[in-house]
């Protein structure tokens, strides 16, 4: 079977002239053929009410798949490895876990070649930087983010300074309403990051918007970042347009502030679009056709129209893994993807909008 259509492009080159239908057909053959598919999918296909090779022709047909990621909590990771991977393709970068905010974590196998491609998805943003050290104030541990940061530093002939952020612990603290302890934990993380910034030269800062805001409360750290840091990468949390403006215009003028929106369940990220939107929101393009989003009405599951809000559905579609039709908890604005791309691009990614002003009847205020 020819699988060249499934091969990743050379680093720095876009996947040119890929026919989406041809790609999907080859992908289904790969994952659901005995010689190349993973033990997980070859077992799981027996419970499907359709034949993926015959029935999945278009991007929309991926909706036939059930959401299987919950099964990734228990499946042995060996079962997730497609048998068709050999040689350098088979080299594993690591096994990474989801945040674990909705129960026990899910595990995913990250292959080295895919990881290098995924890391390079927003390479153009970094190309002008040259040599640089990286400070990542972000989840390491079982999460893929830390390894991406390490590889980022390597690409810049720099070293990685790393301050671990344990998202599960923060969620546990917030889940039981212990805001004081979570504040202490965040202060502990910020103190460690401050120590790195004050003693080392950091060219690339990788962190979440809330932690960037915490760092910004210290005038001396703002000065250091302005002086040393040449690129700020944010990810992992919502960033509203007003705060984004303040970071870019008032706090860190002239320093590129670019986001990544990703998930362990897609083993990668979408990159921030360079064309600014009028509403000031960061827009994200996934590496189609390898990762493709849709944005759906939570009530009906149907795609929402462009510039409408809905819930994000993610698909990872490579020969390294098949993770289709996964409804994420995030909500986002659907925006038109670049021409010819699968699915949707997104903006204003975050939790469900809540309206705090609820009517209180008793009392006069």
């Amino acid at each position, binding site marked *: 079977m020819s699988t060249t259509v499934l091969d990743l492009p050379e680093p720095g080159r876009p996947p040119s002239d890929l026919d989406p239908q041809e790609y999907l057909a080859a992908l289904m053959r790969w994952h659901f053929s005995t010689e190349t598919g993973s033990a997980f999918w070859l077992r799981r296909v027996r419970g499907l009410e359709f034949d993926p090779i015959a029935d999945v022709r278009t991007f929309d047909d991926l909706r036939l798949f059930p959401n299987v990621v919950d099964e990734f909590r228990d499946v042995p990771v060996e079962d997730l490895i497609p048998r068709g991977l050999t040689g350098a393709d088979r080299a594993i970068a690591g096994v990474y876990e989801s945040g674990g905010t909705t129960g026990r974590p899910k595990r995913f196998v990250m292959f080295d070649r895919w990881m290098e491609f995924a890391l390079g998805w927003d390479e153009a943003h970094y190309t002008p930087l040259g040599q640089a050290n990286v400070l990542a104030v972000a989840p390491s541990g079982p999460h893929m983010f830390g390894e991406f940061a390490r590889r980022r530093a390597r690409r810049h002939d720099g070293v990685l300074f790393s301050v671990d952020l344990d998202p599960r612990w923060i969620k546990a603290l917030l889940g039981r309403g212990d805001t004081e302890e979570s504040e202490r934990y965040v202060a502990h993380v910020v103190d460690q990051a401050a120590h790195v910034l004050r003693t080392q030269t950091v060219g690339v800062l990788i962190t979440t918007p809330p932690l960037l*805001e915490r760092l910004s*409360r210290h005038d001396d750290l703002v000065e250091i970042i302005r002086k040393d840091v040449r690129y700020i990468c944010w990810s992992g949390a919502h960033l509203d347009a007003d705060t984004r403006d303040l970071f870019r215009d008032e706090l860190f003028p002239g320093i590129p502030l670019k986001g990544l929106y990703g998930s362990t369940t897609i083993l990668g990220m979408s990159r921030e679009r360079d064309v600014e939107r009028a509403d000031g929101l960061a827009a994200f393009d996934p590496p189609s056709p390898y990762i493709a989003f849709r944005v759906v009405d939570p009530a009906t599951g149907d795609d929402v129209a462009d510039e409408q809000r809905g819930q994000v559905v993610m698909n990872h579609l490579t020969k390294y893994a098949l993770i289709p039709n996964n409804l994420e908890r995030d909500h986002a604005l659907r925006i038109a993807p670049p021409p010819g791309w699968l699915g949707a691009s997104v903006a204003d990614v975050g939790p469900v909008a809540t309206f705090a*002003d609820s*009517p*209180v009847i008793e*009392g*006069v205020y």
Partner: protein
Amino acid sequence: MDATLPAATTALAAAGTVQIDALGVMGPYRSRSRVPLTSVSGAPIGEISQVPALYVRRTLAAMRAAPVVPADERLAAMERAADVFATATIGGFDPDGYVELVSTASGVPRAVVRQSVEWITDVLRSQREVLELARPTGAVGDWRDGRTYAGSAVWARRGDLFAVHAAGNTPAVHGLWPEALALGYKVVVRPSSREPYTAFRLVTALREAGFPPATITLLPTDHGVADVIIGESDFAIVYGGQDVVDKYGAIPTVLPQGPGRSKILVTADVDWREKIDLIAGSVSHLGGTACTCTTAVLVEGDPAPLAEALAQRLGRIPSLPADDPQAILTVQPTASVVEIDRYLHRIAGNARPLLGGDTIVDELPGGGAVLRPAVHLVDSATAPQLGVELPFPCVWIGPWRPSDGLAPLRDTLVLTAMTTRGELIDALLDDPTITNVYVGDHPTTWLRPGVPHDGYLADVLMRTKGMIRSA
């Protein structure tokens, strides 16, 4: 007063073009995140910015870094601000246009808005006197006072930043916090999203009168970010319902302004018949929207005749649009009024309705509905309804006997005691849950700058420090 609307104002408001921006340290700030401003009839008025937490924190940090305006300059500026607030055109609104806008937006009758404007103006003009009254007699206001050579107390601030989480039911809520500004605190106001116009006008007036922007700011936010303002300030005054009192009650630096549950007690030695207009006025003053409005009347003897007379008085108040010069009653969106009516029915239970028992909803042809007064009779001084305060003239009448003691009179912002019994007045003053005691012919809604409403703010915001110095 002319009943026609000022043309420019109406056109502006009708076009939905009013923009309420933050007034930050560096000037006005319009955030991308904005929510609509509407009138009680649902007509668009404009938009109000919703600033993010990052902007709040940076603003508060800059305010902390700013110098305190010297006392004399502060007090002089407040007097000038009173004139600006009362007479100037601010944000395109002259005084009449502003009153009109508040009335249209909040459903508060124009006459009530005007009363509130006068109250705020009085408050601004009287701060010099208020500070003199609030300061302990052992303390000097300025350490340079010669009394410190011999040793004396100096009055000193406990903090630097004072936050106001305002409400929109009556502009009069802005009559309390100017005292904090007079004391030398820097003040950050988080306005109501329903009626931010008074806060905007007052903050602008104070700036025009000479307060540097870093000493008085306006930060419109959602409720989540409002918590950041409260949390990051040294002290805060927060308006809200019982939920707000419960949320902040245990935090000593937050002064919750919740339900007032103000009451009138009439003992048997007093003939209530001469006071019925005063009692009715206590219930309906400011459209029943203030925490000083009477919620319960307790009568020694048969309360029914008083209840009937009160129902008759309150029943005569006409239903009018809020912008009618004769209007007394508050107007709200019909859906809200229907919801309040439903709540009233549920809470009323076995109380005997003498007014408003069928419905308090009176829909207006031009949109919105008037909240008609309600009078209910309960059969016991311990009836739970006596503590139910609703945002319109809603009063519960019940019996009281000396053997009931103080319990039915507790948890009261203002208690008007129509009595000649000195020991009873002593006991009321000794009760820690009764905030103010008025005796005789004074409505619960009586207020005067210099007479505390919830203590002097200075009781909380200031302390004394010992000082002695050499010449």
